[in-house]
């Protein structure tokens, strides 16, 4: 069966989103590596790359709006196009967080160079960033395959990241309590953990969007584990 022009354009748009996802994933992976190695040079490259992700978002949004305006899509086509607008925004936000993580890395590396009071990067922060990147990889894979079951596993994993964030906050507050001179370093680590936690939230949003796209079920604001916690 031949593929129609509209269908081909949908495939192209999906490829654009997959490519944007791969770029964002690479950006986050490199931001994570730069953090663990306290590599200022690599971190600065990550910051520069954010602009390209922003351009990709504009391109995806422009194409999706054109397809909606000219084809009046319905059913799975409509769900995909509506989702593509949100997915592009989520990916762009993840790119911003990658950039934020890299900025914190630059700042902490600078502190170490200047001999300011600091400790080495806590092991659980390295673990947390690896877990969040793994979540992002799972979410992107689920989107590419249109696999709602895998997407739901990503959503379940978000609890784990939230727990990491809480543990790190407590641990850093204790260190800063014991040694007030490490307050600036503590602030950087807590901010960093917040960025990673937000990254995992956006990976969760990607997964929720995949469930909507694949099954037409809106689970956003219903299944998000962090929402349930907020209500407690």
């Amino acid at each position, binding site marked *: 069966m031949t593929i129609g022009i509209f269908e081909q354009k949908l495939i192209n748009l999906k490829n654009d989103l997959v490519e944007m996802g791969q770029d964002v994933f690479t950006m986050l992976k490199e931001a994570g590596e730069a953090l663990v190695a306290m590599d200022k040079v690599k971190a600065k490259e990550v910051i520069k790359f954010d602009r390209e992700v922003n351009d990709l978002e504009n391109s995806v949004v422009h194409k999706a709006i054109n397809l909606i305006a000219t084809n009046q899509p319905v059913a799975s086509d409509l769900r995909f196009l509506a989702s593509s607008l949100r997915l592009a925004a989520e990916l762009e936000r993840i790119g911003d967080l990658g950039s934020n993580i890299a900025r914190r890395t630059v700042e902490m590396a600078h502190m170490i160079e200047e001999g300011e009071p600091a400790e080495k990067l806590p092991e659980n922060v390295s673990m947390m960033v690896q877990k969040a990147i793994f979540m992002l990889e799972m979410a992107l894979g689920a989107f590419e395959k249109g696999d709602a079951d895998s997407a739901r596993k990503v959503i379940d994993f978000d609890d784990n990241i939230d727990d990491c964030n809480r543990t790190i906050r407590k641990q850093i507050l204790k260190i800063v309590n014991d040694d007030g001179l490490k307050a600036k370093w503590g602030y950087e680590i807590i901010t960093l953990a917040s960025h990673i936690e937000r990254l995992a939230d956006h990976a969760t949003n990607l997964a929720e969007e995949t469930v909507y796209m694949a099954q*037409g079920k809106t689970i956003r604001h219903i299944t998000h584990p962090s929402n349930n916690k907020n209500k407690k």
Partner: protein
Amino acid sequence: MVEEKKEKVIIRAKNVDFYYGDFHALKNISLDCMEKEVTAMIGPSGCGKSTFLKLLNRMNDFVPGARLSGEVTISGESIYGPNADPVDIRRRVGMVFQRPNPFPKSIYDNITYGPKLIGIKKPDLDVIVERALKAAALWDEVKDLLNKSALELSGGQQQRVCIARALALEPDILLMDEPTSALDPIATSKVEEWIKTAELSIVIVTHNMQQAARISDKTAFFFLGELIEFGPTLELFTRPRESKTENYITGRFG
């Protein structure tokens, strides 16, 4: 206390099979249309949607070799039973066709044609004309031109004269067979606006899926004489249950 909206079935088709000679045009169709709702019928040409529509006011009675099995009721009464009167049924179930077909008479005479046949006289006729034209959203445009020939009106106005002519008999149901396919976008939007605000039980056949999505409460998808899917329009157009529906409405049929 919130008052619960009670849906009332106005049209019920139960296990309906319909044949044109040897051709099995409708296969075991069961479907309920609710009072004061707009029900849209979609599907490719030859799928049976217009055949189904014509069953509802016994327009297929005139087709040689046509036969029906199963049951069709309107407000609980069988319209194919021994006591059913086709003339009375067609008074209660009005119809508007694809192309505007006003009589070559004045606007006034078009609207009063049916009421006169059942013995209604002036001044009641004047009241009926005003009410029907207002209901069809045409009164403001033609109130000073009632003696003008309906054929001199624009296509959209002619179609609304036909709607008003059908409404003059105060039908319980209005059947519409692709009522805007011969109209330009402005005339189409006026007819669609009327349909959306009519507060009448309407069954509409349309090839324009966006139109079905815009104006109907429920949509039925027919294919090869079978009712593939029937349900709330919003659901059918955002997450259809059946893959055949999905393929048809997204244009990937075949």
